[in-house]
């Protein structure tokens, strides 16, 4: 990977005259040290996934073994490939959940940013208070209520509660306010466009970078979710990766042979999201995650 920023001129060659560009060694070293710390467990799981069960606890931490393919095929064979079902479930929950949640957030954020209507600020404040609710105070009664509707242990039980994302709405409001000018909306109204049409064909394209951010944020949040499926699901055919790997680790304390499966599974679970971020950061800025909008 290229370690230089595109904006930084190559040293010496294109320096501004009279102001030599110094490299601060100590701070650079500190930054690299931080990067190293963040890479450490990821590097370890890459190496550990190549080790056989014996090698895992006997060879040096970062000494690679020769059993990667064997581990992957063991994982593939474990209970008729249930691991791939977990991965498909995670993709389903995160993909569908993030898409729907993004749509709900876009609608609400647009409404809060563009219209002046009675109750606007209270709606927003009530939603923000929702962020503060510990997930467990919601999850336990959610479980009991979904049990009444006979929906526990179903895919819907994991999907429905994540569709409303207060943070997503908060971001959507900021993006809508920053990227959809009021006079554009007014002009469209003058042309006789309906409110829904204005939203769909004018506002959504303008909000697109922000909506991509909300989608990604929700995708990661659902992909990483553990508590909700842990409470809702008991049929392991419906487990997402996090819950599947957790139960595998739990069984591993009795049968250590499962540890290599857990580690190989963890590697394969981490790779898709890392790949997603590496690809996406080329045309999408991380800064959007904290609600930053270029003016």
């Amino acid at each position: 990977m290229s370690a230089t920023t595109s904006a930084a001129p190559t040293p010496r060659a294109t320096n501004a005259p009279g102001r030599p560009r110094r490299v601060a060694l100590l701070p650079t070293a500190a930054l690299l040290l931080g990067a190293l710390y963040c890479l450490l467990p990821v590097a370890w799981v890459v190496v550990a996934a190549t080790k056989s069960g014996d090698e895992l606890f006997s060879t040096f931490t970062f000494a690679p073994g020769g059993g990667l393919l064997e581990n992957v095929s063991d994982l593939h064979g474990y209970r008729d490939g249930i691991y791939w079902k977990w991965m498909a479930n995670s993709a389903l929950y995160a993909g569908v959940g993030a898409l729907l949640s993004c749509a709900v957030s876009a609608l609400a954020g647009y409404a809060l940013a563009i219209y002046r209507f009675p109750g606007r600020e209270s709606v927003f404040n009530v939603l923000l208070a929702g962020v503060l609710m510990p997930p467990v105070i919601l999850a336990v009664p959610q479980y009991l209520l979904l049990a009444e509707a006979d929906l526990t242990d179903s895919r819907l039980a994991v999907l429905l509660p994540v569709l409303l994302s207060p943070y997503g709405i908060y971001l959507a409001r900021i993006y809508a306010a920053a990227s959809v000018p009021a006079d554009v909306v007014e002009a469209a109204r003058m042309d006789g466009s309906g409110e829904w049409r204005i939203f769909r064909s004018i506002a959504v394209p303008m909000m697109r970078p922000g909506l991509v951010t909300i989608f990604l944020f929700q995708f990661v949040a659902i992909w990483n979710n553990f508590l909700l499926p842990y409470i809702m699901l008991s049929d392991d055919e419906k487990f997402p990766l996090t819950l599947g790997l957790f139960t595998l680790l739990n069984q591993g304390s009795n049968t250590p042979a499962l540890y290599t499966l857990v580690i190989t599974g963890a590697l394969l679970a981490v790779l898709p999201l890392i790949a997603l971020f590496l690809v996406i950061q080329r045309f999408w800025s991380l800064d959007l995650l904290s609600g930053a909008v270029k003016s």
Partner: protein
Amino acid sequence: MSAPDRPRRRRGASVRSAPYGFLAPTAVLFLLFFALPIGYALYLSVRKVQIKGLGLGPDGREEVWAGLANYRGALTDSELLDGALRVLGYGAIVVPVMLGLALFFALLLDDEQVRGRRFGRLTIFLPYAVPGVIAALLWGFLYLPSVSPVTDALETLGLPAPDFLTGPALYGSLANIAIWGGTGFNMIVIYTALRALPVEVREAARLDGCTPLQTALRVKIPMVLPSLVLTFFFSIIATLQVFNEPTTLRPLTNNLSTTWSPLMKVYQDAFTGGDIHSAAATAVVIALVTLVLSFGFLRLATARTRREENAR
């Protein structure tokens, strides 16, 4: 566009009702999955199960009004209090270290003399993409004496190796997982705020002869205080709700009880102990503490920023 001469009155009405239409999905979801569960939790928390006679048969158990008995039970439960203290100790490590590192790295990213900034930014953010459960699992293995590179290194040197999963070290080990996972996101939030600082401010600091360190301490940090407040606030809330990491580490050590954190206690009461009512009361207490802390903190923070703005 079609229908340019649609009657004006009708259009005004649709403009007035449109926001409610756009907010309808949000309202339905909020009622079903936020308001209703919270109301139900409150209801459950003031009820209890009474056993009639021998407690056998369908009529043997009856739900009755319990008043505040469940709350009294929760507040005097020594397990819950111990859990709260453990989480306090854990938070006392996580929040300052994580935010300190996030601020430090954000300042480094904002310093043009530092090389490898793009690489550093991406790499330090990377753990955000790793689920908390998997992060706990990876670090959990790295804490095992037979796997840990630290243990290996210390033994080669003939030094005694610490056990990462017992005693006070366990707090550090748990905190490390949260710090590893959370620093990147907070760094991005602070870095975004730093980049939004006006160019004139940097220029002025440079012309005044400030070193990068002085600029950071006297100019940049005070100016990004609001985003520091925000990250502090969210870190505290996340810390109070710690659940995934200790739950995931449990299979690897005997030193984590099923009620290590207050949320684990709620889960334990509700789903293993089968005592929904005291679980609901405990959950309400945790929610109240979170709300009081957050609003108290927000008030304090906004009052402070206002005072400083007035003083300028």
